[in-house]
């Protein structure tokens, strides 16, 4: 006990000061679409065939192109492995949370949208978050990891709370199956205005692989339209923190 305590006391502060740093090179990251020309027009359908989550769609309208819905992507990395032209490639950026659902649907040659922050956000310096888990416990663990000394969301003025009455933000993970829809509604109603809703993880955004079945695990939108969307399966703590800062209107999300 005593040597352990001494060792603990000697440990320096563990908090990672490299804010929203890119993921390590080991990580598969999330895909992005570059503007490198795609062979789709020549009949290449490899990525869409490989995609088990039906996230990649070959659009046939006016001008054929490929779209990739990060809200359905389970980050398996199969599309980036097969793409012969490097149109779909890996991005290890942790700044992937968005405020509009459409921004999650990537198109070739898209510029990564820079979020526009509300000029007067009520939560810029302080935000209390209530987390509701609806069936994706890896995301629960990553949200929990945001509170560990390494990521330490507390330093941005973010606290997690036990009561919806205290909360400003509702963070929802998991695909919101039928039996969780009513409890989620009640939780939302128990929160005082102003409030924001954040969907965290692919399962929360669309239900992921489990969508479209009898249990109606089709994501948060069956109950409420989120203000911030955080992709990832499960999202890395930095991605979650990026989403939280976005919800706060914290300028840290713009200036690196």
């Amino acid at each position, binding site marked *: *006990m005593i040597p352990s305590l001494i060792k603990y006391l000697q440990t320096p502060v563990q908090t990672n000061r490299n804010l929203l740093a890119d993921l390590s090179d*080991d990580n598969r990251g999330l895909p992005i679409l570059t503007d490198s020309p795609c062979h789709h027009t020549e009949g290449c359908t490899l990525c869409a065939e490989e995609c088990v989550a039906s996230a990649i769609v070959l659009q046939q309208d006016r001008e054929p192109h490929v779209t990739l819905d990060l809200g359905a992507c389970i980050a398996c990395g199969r599309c980036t492995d097969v793409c012969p032209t490097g149109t779909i490639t890996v991005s290890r950026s942790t700044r992937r949370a968005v405020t509009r659902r459409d921004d999650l649907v990537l198109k070739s040659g898209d510029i990564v949208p820079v979020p526009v922050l509300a000029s007067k956000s009520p939560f810029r310096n302080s935000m209390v978050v209530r987390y509701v888990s609806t069936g994706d416990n*890896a995301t629960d663990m990553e949200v929990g*990891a945001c509170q560990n000394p*390494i990521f330490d969301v507390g330093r941005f003025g973010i606290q997690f709370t036990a009561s919806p009455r205290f909360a400003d933000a509702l963070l929802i993970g998991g695909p919101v199956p039928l039996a969780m829809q009513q409890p989620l509604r009640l939780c939302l109603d128990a929160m005082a205005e102003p409030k924001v809703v954040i969907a965290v993880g692919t399962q929360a955004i669309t239900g992921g692989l489990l969508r479209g079945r*009898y249990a109606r695990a089709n994501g948060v939108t069956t109950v409420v339209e989120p203000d911030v969307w955080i992709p990832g399966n*499960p999202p890395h703590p930095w991605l979650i923190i990026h989403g939280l800062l976005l919800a706060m209107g914290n300028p840290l999300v713009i200036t690196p």
Partner: protein
Amino acid sequence: MIQNHFKPAGPFAAEEVPIIQLRARLKTEIQDGNRLGLLTASATSDGHELLTVIISPLGHSVRIINSLLPHDAVTYSSLTPDIPQAHWFEREIADMWGLRPIGHPRMKSLVMHDSFPDNFFPLAAGASLPTSRMRSRRVPYRFTVVQGNGVYEVPVGPVHAGVIEPGHFRFSCLGEVIENLEIRLGFVHRGVEEHLTQCSWQSARYVVEAASSDTSAGNAVAHAFAMESLCGVTVSESVRRLRAACVEIERIACHIGDLAGICADIGFGAGSSAFGVLRAAVLGIAELLTGSRFMTGFLAPFYQRGLPDAAVLTEAASRLTEVGLQLRLTLPLLMDNAGAIERMEGMGIMKPSLAREFGLVGPAARASGIDYDVRKALPTPEYECIEWPIAIWNEGDVLARARVRAHELATSVRLAEALLTGIAVVKQPSCITRLPANATGIGIVEAWRGELIHLVQTDETGRIARYKIKDPSFNNWTALAVSVRGRLLSDFPLCNKSFSLSYSGTDL
């Protein structure tokens, strides 16, 4: 060294037992020291059958018992009165298939909620959820009422205060003392088993990882074993070692996370901080090996894409050694802390006799003196790369469960190091293009919560017709409810954390 290795691949011994003899048969099996692995139902050409998986820890073998139900029968005689561990299985079968056990002592729904329409049984043939605005006519779920002067109820959940999964706890209390706890699950019932029969078998591996996504590696490996046993193929030793290493790394990360949770629940901030930092290091190793902190989308049946190269394996092994050293220095913060020990000792006791009756698995079982670990009961060669002890404590309290975890951490670090050093990079292409018809496969893994079973059956066209996942938590929930009886209300969170159960794995 055990001579007769359990062979996960190949046909299992299967036998037919008439449904009227099943109860007596299971009773003798359990008296003989065998385990009821899982009990479920399946559709046949002529109605339904009950499937029982019997695990023999002494004989290192697994058997399946099929019991045909008479044509059109929707009831059968309940097994629970003689075999207590069947009680949740039977409730689940009733929910999913509409087969009612007659004589079940406490029959009520388990995973299907009042929000689903009445007489909707997702797995029964021809089941479909009305798409129109449906009105539930279900008999509302009724909690057990404890009567007496001064007894009051404390409802908790389904949305919990912490960053944990949803479930409802109904405490009946007398003052601060818990007289009864009823656990209502099913809030995260997502229809995983039905989905697995609808998707292609190639994408099934991604779906099983979402069954309880904190056990991605465990589920992926159990799925791989089940699919390989279905097809009767084996993979190379390197692949098997890599799988075992992934399961061990997941165990290390999650056990450390549980210890951090125990520290947080007793208000010991230094401990939760130290363990939290250590857990991040383990997740870093998982990321290095598999490209994902939770090892998702990596392990596959029949083959292994992207075996890590030698440099990565060496790096992972050396990082594991470092984690082992850090663990040795950090564990005493909790395990030798007099205040913490006092808080955990005698708390939430699960008696060995009861633990046996309920068929507990995993660290909770080993803390109640049950000598059961799939890695020993169904031994495979990769787990014999080193000698390792099985961690057993007899007290059955929170302290014993913490000690089992602490002990297993050291074992798992050694095991994972040894497993990683024996992996040779040999590409093994997938040789399976279609699944055999009318076959059955079982995969059993000691995941970090305990015995995890996947059972897969194909129909005559080679499609997956039945997929059953038995999460380790399924066996242990009852133990949590029983172990807090007579304890104080404020002790419940600590007891709960010491069992550390999965809601989504149980609800599926």
